[in-house]
């Protein structure tokens, strides 16, 4: 399957041919999709910002709001939910770093070492993608069962006194970060693999020929060359993790002490109908992510985005 979306670097056309200069055809091809995105991507974002500034309407009924320009909503959500906001970013950072550490050697094996054995390379790649084919929720729930309070993992850890007799795993920060890391590893491994698979091994040979130790070759040659893969991999894991709420949910790996921005948005929006605060939180999350994206765009240019 194509996961070019996550690939590092840019996909340049192999053919140098002047692009056709027919504005009419180009518009006919572009407009339907662009209008669609304007209607169902841009407008909703505007709508979200509008909702985030709403105030309760005169009737005072729950779930009824009217247009206002209540910037105070933002102060309110920051004051009320700052632990959730901080937790989201700490979790996302931790899980992103962990998946980078787990993925890089794996991607290096598949993309560089396994070149000699195409069959193993293909098989390993298929196994990395395999989790995509089974429901995200089922996978997460499976971990919950494997680490449940009665599971042999927990009882073993307790008997080894790593965990106290009344200490469990499900519901802890550790468990949520574990789940987030697990679920987003493929999003990290694939762009890393794409970058490493293109790595010209002669460069490494040239490096060691010029008296660099293996560690130095890695730091001075391999790492900089695969940097685009690292950047797009971290972006592709950090963004969805920061907005996730399945892993941290009480019904899955979390507890009331692990709630993230996503959990608050879900509760406020879908359960207690507090639309303005849910929207304000979403807008804050989006703004933070946009900051990251701008950083990325600065580094690589817009044409490289797709």
């Amino acid at each position, binding site marked *: *399957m*194509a*996961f*070019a*979306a996550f690939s590092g670097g840019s*996909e340049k*056309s*192999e*053919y140098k041919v*002047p*692009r056709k*200069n*027919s504005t009419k*055809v180009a518009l*006919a091809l*572009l407009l*339907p*999709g*662009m209008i*669609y995105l304007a209607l*169902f*991507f841009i407008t909703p974002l505007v709508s*979200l910002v509008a909702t985030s500034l709403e105030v309760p309407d005169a009737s005072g009924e729950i779930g009824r709001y009217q247009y206002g320009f209540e910037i105070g909503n933002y102060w309110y959500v920051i004051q009320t939910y700052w632990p959730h906001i901080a937790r989201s970013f700490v979790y996302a950072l931790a899980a992103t770093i962990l998946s980078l550490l787990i993925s890089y*050697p*794996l991607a290096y*094996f598949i993309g560089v070492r396994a070149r000699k054995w195409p069959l193993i390379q*293909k098989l390993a790649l*298929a*196994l*990395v993608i395999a989790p995509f*084919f*089974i*429901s*995200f*929720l089922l*996978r*997460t*729930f*499976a*971990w919950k069962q*494997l680490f449940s309070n*009665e599971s042999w993992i927990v009882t073993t850890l307790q008997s080894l006194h790593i965990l106290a007799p009344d200490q469990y795993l499900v519901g802890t920060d550790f468990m949520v970060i574990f789940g987030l890391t*697990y679920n987003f*590893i493929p999003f990290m491994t694939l762009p890393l693999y794409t970058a490493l698979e293109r790595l010209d091994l002669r460069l490494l040979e040239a490096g060691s020929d010029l008296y660099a130790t293996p560690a130095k070759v890695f730091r001075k040659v391999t790492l900089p060359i695969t940097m685009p893969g690292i950047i797009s991999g971290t972006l592709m894991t950090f*963004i969805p993790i920061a907005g996730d*709420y*399945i892993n941290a949910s009480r*019904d899955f790996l979390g507890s009331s002490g692990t709630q993230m921005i996503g959990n608050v948005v*879900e509760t406020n929006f*879908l359960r207690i109908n507090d*639309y303005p605060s849910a*929207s304000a939180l*979403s807008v804050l*999350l989006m703004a933070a*992510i946009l900051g990251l*994206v701008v950083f990325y765009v600065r580094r690589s240019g*817009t*044409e490289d*985005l*797709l």
Partner: protein
Amino acid sequence: MRYSLGRAALPVYAVLALVYLLIPIVYTFIFSFNNTFKSNITWRGFTFNNWLTVCEEQGVCEAFGNSILIGVTSTIVATALGTAIAIALVRYEFKFRSAVSLLLFLPMATPEIVLGAGLASQFFNIGAEKGIGTVIIAHVMFCLSFVVVTVKARVSSLDPALEEAGSDLYASPSHVFWKITFPLLMPGIMSAALLSFALSFDDFIITNFNAGPTSTFPKFVYTAASKGIPAAANVVGSAVFLVAILIVVGVQIRSTIKERRLRAVK
């Protein structure tokens, strides 16, 4: 000795990492054969019953059917819109190119929760009834960019001289598209469609915000999670996994055979 140990470390690590990735899949698969009583938490013995009576579990098959319907519909729409954009991006010169690129990139870079809440607030503000329709609208939106990226890679690798040769050989622009461009883009379009279907079928967050009372398979699993997920969900999940693996393996085998045949003749 130290050297050979170093050589072996990486493959061993890779095997361990892959096993780690597969544990939940294997778990889900095994527990689809659990002879459950009330809950599907502890192993109580092997049975095929869950597979044979999967639709007797309330709501599973309805949710699964909805997911298929939503997946197929949004895949068709997203693939058509995305393919057109991909062709325009590679083959045509137009103004605002970077604006278009940005507009396509942003949905991929936006957390699902923001996409979901945004659409939900828009549907709420205009008073639209949530249901299958709103879910399809949402799914087309977030699949579109992925389709563009996938098909674009294929268009870029297509020699433009092939299309020029077509028009040089008296084919009108529409004939060139349907007889040459389209068949040659087909592998890219197919993988974009598969990706799009997979994304739609497995989506929970955006769906949860925009489905209203409509159930989908991930929504079913989420709702069931608080009281324990029934084995029927494991059955559906495992079956989908097996079908997907079969498709991927089939495609691989086909392309390998094709390659072999080409090489054999040469």
